[in-house]
C-alpha cells in the first residue's frame, strides 16, 4: 500500500481492454497531464482517510537488515524521549499562547514517511495519530515541486485540520532531518495557539457557519526556508489573526524547540550511525503496532456498544447521536461509528475524520495502554468504519470550528467502552475507570486588554475536567482534561496581569455536581468572571450538555449533571461590592436564586454562547463538569457519604434518597443499623417499581423520537444505516429518514429568524383577535 501516491489500478497486464476508454499509454499521458496541471492541491483522501502506518521503505528495509540491537534501540528511544521532554518544556516555558503554558502542546520525532515514532511524555497524545497526514502531504506534493522543495533547515507550518490536525486552533512546525540529500526523519512541535482569526476570538468558534468562519486555513506551507523565517508569509499569517504578536512569538518558540530536538538527533546519528537511527524509528512504530494487536488478543471476543447523544449545535438545542460499536475477534478490532448523525452544514460541531480518530488514539494511549510509546502504531491496527459526511467524518464543505464536539465523543466512545472490554481480562495495563468528563466547560474571551493589545484566547480551566471514578476509589476533582494527563489550570493572578477580567469565584465546588456511585466521579468547580478596565471585551462558551448529560456512569453509577450558563447583565459587580463588601459572597446558586443585585437581568442559557459583549462588571457563571460514578450508589461506604455531606459536596437530600444513609445531624455520625434498613428498603423499592425488561421495552420504546425533538442519527441499533434527521425545507422542521447518502443537506435556520417569525405570527394573531387593522409592508 502506498498512500503518498494516487491509488490507480491499470486495466490489466496486457494493457488494452475493449471496455477501457483509454489505453495504458493514453492513461499515463492523462495522468501526467493532470499531475502537471492540477488546479488545487487540497486535502488528499488517499492520505487523509488512512491512519495506518506506512509499509517499510526500501531504505528502512536496508537499515533494518543491518541488524537490530534491542538495547541500542531502547537507548535511542530514551535519548529521544529526553530531547522531546526538553523541547516540550521549552515550549511550555517560553510559549506565548495560554495553551502552551498549560501543556496543551506536543513535540515529536517522525519517520521519513511521517509516522510518529515518539511523542513527548507530557502533552496532548492525540497529536500522535494526526500529524502523519501533513508530512505525507508535504512528501507527496512539495518534495519534488520545483517552487517549494524540501531542504535542510526548512520548516513547515499548518493549522487546518482538513490536512490533519487535532483542531484548527493548533499550529505546527515540521522540520525534515536530511542526510546526503535524503529525508530520513522529521521532527516537530505543535501548540494549541488559540487565536486563529476565526469569526470569533480564541480559535474555537462556536458560531462558525461556513468553513471560512473557522479562521486560518493554512495548508502545509514552508514558513522557514534554510533556517530563515520567511517574513512575507509570517506577515500574512499575522495579518490573518487577531494576535500578531502571538503568531510571531510562538513560531519562534517552536523553531527553538525543534532545534533542540534536532541537536539530539544530530548527535545520535553521529554516535550510532544513520542506518541504526532510521531502523530504530521504524522498529518502534512497528513494535507498538505489534504490541497493540497482541493486547487486543488478550481482550474477550465480542461486541461492546456505547451510544452518545449530544444536545447542542452550540446555537440551538438538538439531539445528535454519536454511535459506536466495537467488535473484537482475536487480534482484530473494529470501531464502527455507523448510526452517527449527519454533518450539519452550517454549524461548527462537525469533525474531520482524522481529528475524530486522533481522540481515539488519545483514549488508547492515555486510558487503555498508557505504558506504550506514543506512536502512530497505536491506532494503526484498529479498523475504523465511518460514513463520510456524518458529523464525525465531516466533508470538506462543513465548518469544523468547534470540532471537539464530535472528536471528544470519539475519545469517550473508546474510553467508556473499554471498562466493559477489559473488565474480565486478567492482564490489565490501566485501571477500570468510569467515563471521564468530556466537555470544554470554559470561557473563551477576546477584545482589548488593559495593556492596549488585541487578544483572543481561552481560560485554562478547561483543563479542570473531573476524573471518572475508579473501581476502587472516588474520581479526582478537576484533575485533568481528557486530552492531557499532566496539564495545568494556570495561575489566575498571572493571567489577570495580561487580560482585563477577574475570576471573582474560582475553584469553588458546586454541591451535588457529581456522578454518583459506589465511588463518585471527580467534581468540577464553579467560575464567575467579570470584565474590568477594558474598552471592549467579550466572552464565549463552546459546550454542549445543558439538557442531556455529557457522560454516563459505569456499572450502575450515574453520570454527570447538565451545565447551564448563567449571566447577570446590566449590573456592575465592582460598584456593588465597593458599596457593600458583604455582597462579595458570590455563587451561582445564591446569585441566580436570590437575585440580590437590583436592576440585574438574570439569565440562564445553554453553554453555546457566541461572542457576547461583556460590559464592566457583568457576571458570567459556569461550572466545570464531573466525571461519571462507578457502581451502585447503595454500595457506597456510608462514611464517604457523610464526609461529602459535611464538606457540602452533596446535599442532605442526596445523602438520604440517593445513598440511603442515616446520620446524626450535627455530629455526622452514621446510624449503621438504620442505614442498613433504609438501604434494604430502597432495594425493595427498586424491585417493586421496576418492570420486567420485555414489558418495559413494549411500554417505553417508540418507533421514532418524540416529534418535537430535533433528532439526528439512527434510532436504536438494529439498523444503524437508517438515519433520521431534521430537515428545514422552510421554517418548520420536518423529519426525514434514509441512508446518509439519501438524506438532504442539513442546514439549521437562524434561530433569530425563527423567533422573529413566531413573534410576527403572534402579533398577527393578536391583531386579528382585537380587530386592529395594521398594514404590514414588506
Amino acid at each position, binding site marked *: 500500500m502506498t498512500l503518498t501516491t494516487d491509488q490507480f489500478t491499470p486495466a490489466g497486464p496486457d494493457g488494452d481492454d475493449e471496455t477501457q476508454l483509454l489505453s495504458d499509454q493514453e492513461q499515463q499521458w492523462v495522468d501526467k497531464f493532470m499531475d502537471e496541471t492540477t488546479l488545487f492541491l487540497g486535502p488528499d483522501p488517499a492520505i487523509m482517510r488512512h491512519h495506518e502506518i506506512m509499509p517499510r521503505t526500501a531504505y528502512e528495509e536496508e537499515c533494518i537488515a543491518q541488524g537490530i540491537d534491542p538495547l541500542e534501540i531502547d537507548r535511542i528511544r530514551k535519548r529521544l524521549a529526553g530531547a522531546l521532554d526538553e523541547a516540550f518544556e521549552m515550549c511550555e516555558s517560553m510559549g506565548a499562547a495560554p495553551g502552551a503554558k498549560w501543556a496543551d502542546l506536543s513535540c515529536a520525532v517522525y519517520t521519513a514517511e511521517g509516522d510518529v515514532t515518539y511523542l513527548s511524555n507530557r502533552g496532548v497524545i492525540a497529536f500522535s495519530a494526526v500529524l502523519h497526514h501533513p508530512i505525507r502531504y508535504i512528501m507527496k506534493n512539495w518534495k519534488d515541486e520545483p517552487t517549494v522543495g524540501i531542504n535542510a533547515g526548512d520548516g513547515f507550518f499548518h493549522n487546518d485540520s482538513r490536512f490533519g490536525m487535532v483542531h484548527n486552533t493548533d499550529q505546527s512546525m515540521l522540520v525534515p532531518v536530511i542526510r546526503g540529500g535524503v529525508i530520513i526523519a522529521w521532527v516537530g512541535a505543535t501548540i494549541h495557539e488559540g487565536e486563529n482569526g476565526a469569526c470569533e476570538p480564541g480559535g474555537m468558534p462556536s458560531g462558525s457557519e461556513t468553513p471560512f468562519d473557522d479562521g486560518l486555513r493554512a495548508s502545509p506551507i514552508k514558513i522557514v526556508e534554510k533556517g530563515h523565517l520567511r517574513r512575507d508569509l509570517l506577515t500574512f499569517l499575522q495579518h490573518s489573526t487577531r494576535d500578531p504578536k502571538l503568531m510571531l512569538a510562538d513560531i519562534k518558540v517552536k523553531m527553538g524547540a525543534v532545534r533542540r530536538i534536532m541537536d539530539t538527533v544530530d548527535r545520535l546519528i553521529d554516535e550510532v550511525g544513520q542506518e541504526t537511527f532510521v531502523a530504530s524509528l521504524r522498529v518502534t512504530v512497528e513494535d507498538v503496532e505489534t504490541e497493540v494487536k497482541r493486547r487486543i488478543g488478550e481482550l474477550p471476543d*465480542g461486541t*461492546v*456498544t*456505547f451510544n452518545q*447523544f449530544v*444536545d447542542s449545535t452550540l446555537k440551538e438545542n438538538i*439531539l445528535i447521536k454519536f454511535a459506536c460499536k466495537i467488535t473484537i475477534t482475536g487480534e482484530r478490532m473494529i470501531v464502527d461509528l455507523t448510526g452517527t448523525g449527519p454533518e450539519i452544514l452550517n454549524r461548527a460541531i462537525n469533525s474531520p475524520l482524522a481529528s475524530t480518530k486522533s481522540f481515539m488514539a488519545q483514549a488508547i494511549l492515555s486510558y487503555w495502554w498508557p505504558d506504550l510509546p506514543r506512536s502512530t502504531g497505536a491506532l494503526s491496527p484498529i479498523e475504523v468504519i465511518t460514513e463520510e459526511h456524518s458529523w464525525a467524518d465531516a466533508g470538506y464543505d462543513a465548518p469544523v470550528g468547534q470540532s471537539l464536539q464530535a472528536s471528544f465523543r470519539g475519545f469517550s466512545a473508546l474510553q467508556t467502552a473499554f471498562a*466493559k472490554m*477489559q*473488565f*474480565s481480562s*486478567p492482564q490489565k495495563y490501566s*485501571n*477500570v475507570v468510569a467515563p471521564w468528563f468530556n466537555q470544554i466547560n470554559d470561557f473563551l474571551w477576546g477584545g482589548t486588554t488593559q495593556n492596549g493589545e488585541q487578544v483572543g484566547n481561552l481560560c485554562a480551566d478547561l483543563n479542570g475536567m473531573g476524573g471518572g471514578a475508579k473501581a*476502587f*476509589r472516588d474520581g479526582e476533582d478537576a484533575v485533568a482534561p481528557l486530552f492531557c494527563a499532566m496539564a495545568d489550570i494556570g495561575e489566575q493572578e498571572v493571567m489577570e496581569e495580561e487580560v482585563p477580567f477577574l475570576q471573582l469565584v474560582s475553584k469553588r465546588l458546586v454541591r*451535588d*455536581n457529581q456522578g454518583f456511585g*459506589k465511588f463518585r466521579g471527580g467534581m468540577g468547580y464553579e467560575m464567575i468572571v467579570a470584565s474590568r478596565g477594558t474598552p471592549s471585551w467579550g466572552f464565549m462558551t463552546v459546550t454542549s450538555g*445543558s*439538557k*442531556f448529560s455529557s457522560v*454516563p*456512569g459505569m*456499572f*450502575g453509577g*450515574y453520570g454527570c*449533571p*447538565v*451545565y*447551564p*450558563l*448563567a449571566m447577570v447583565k446590566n449590573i456592575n459587580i465592582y460598584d456593588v461590592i465597593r458599596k457593600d463588601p458583604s455582597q462579595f459572597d458570590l455563587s451561582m446558586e445564591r446569585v*441566580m436564586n436570590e437575585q440580590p443585585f437590583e436592576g440585574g437581568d*438574570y439569565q*440562564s442559557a445553554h453553554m453555546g454562547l457566541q461572542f457576547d459583549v461583556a460590559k464592566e462588571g457583568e457576571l458570567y457563571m459556569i*461550572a466545570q463538569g464531573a466525571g461519571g460514578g462507578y457502581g*451502585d450508589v447503595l*454500595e457506597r461506604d456510608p462514611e464517604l457519604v457523610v464526609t461529602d455531606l459535611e464538606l457540602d459536596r452533596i446535599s442532605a437530600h442526596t445523602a438520604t434518597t*440517593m445513598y440511603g444513609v442515616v446520620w446524626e445531624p450535627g455530629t455526622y455520625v452514621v446510624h449503621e443499623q438504620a442505614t442498613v434498613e433504609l438501604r434494604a428498603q430502597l*432495594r*425493595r*423499592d*427498586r*424491585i417493586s417499581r*421496576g*418492570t*420486567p*425488561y*420485555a414489558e*418495559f421495552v413494549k411500554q*417505553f*420504546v417508540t418507533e421514532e*423520537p*418524540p416529534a*418535537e*425533538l430535533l*433528532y439526528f442519527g439512527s434510532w*436504536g*441499533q438494529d439498523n444503524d444505516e437508517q438515519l433520521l434527521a431534521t430537515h428545514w425545507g422552510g421554517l418548520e422542521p420536518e423529519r426525514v429518514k434514509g441512508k446518509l447518502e439519501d438524506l438532504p443537506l442539513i442546514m439549521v435556520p437562524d434561530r433569530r429568524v425563527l423567533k422573529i417569525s413566531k413573534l410576527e405570527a403572534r402579533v398577527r394573531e393578536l391583531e386579528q383577535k382585537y380587530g386592529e387593522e395594521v398594514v404590514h409592508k414588506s
Partner: protein
Amino acid sequence: MTEYLLIDLDTERWICRICAHDFGDARGNYKEGTLVYDRDPREIHPPVIDPEKYEFTFSPDPTFCRILEFYCPTCGTQIEAEYLPPGHPPTVDMLWDIDSLREKWETHGGNPEEVVNYGPGENAETDLSARFDSVAHHSHSHRGTTTEGH
C-alpha cells in the same frame, strides 16, 4: 464480566455476582433478565438554580433525557444506569463470544475469581469472587457451584 455480572461458562448463563440471580443466556443480552425503571433525570440530578425561574438549572431536561435503571430482580442491585432519549431502545451494550471466552480461560488456566482485578497498582487489587451472601434479604438459594470461568 462487570462489577455485578458473572458468566457461568458451564451453564452459559449471566449471573448476578451479589445474589446469584440468573439473567439468562450468556450468549444474549443480560438486560433481558433485569427489571427496568424509567427515571426522571431531575430526581437524580437536582436543580441548583431555581427551575421556576430558569430553563437551564443543572437538571437534565426530561424531554431530552431519561435514565433507565436496570435492577437485579432478586437483590435490587442497580447493574446499569443508561442515559437515553425518551423512547430510544435500550442499548444492547455487551455481546460476548462464549466459545472464545471459554477457550481463553482454558488457555490461561487461572481461576478468574482470583486473578481478575481492577488493574495495576496495589489499591486496584480486589476480591471479585461471587458475593452471594452479601445482601441479606434476597430470596434466591445460594449456588455455590456457580463461578465465573468454570
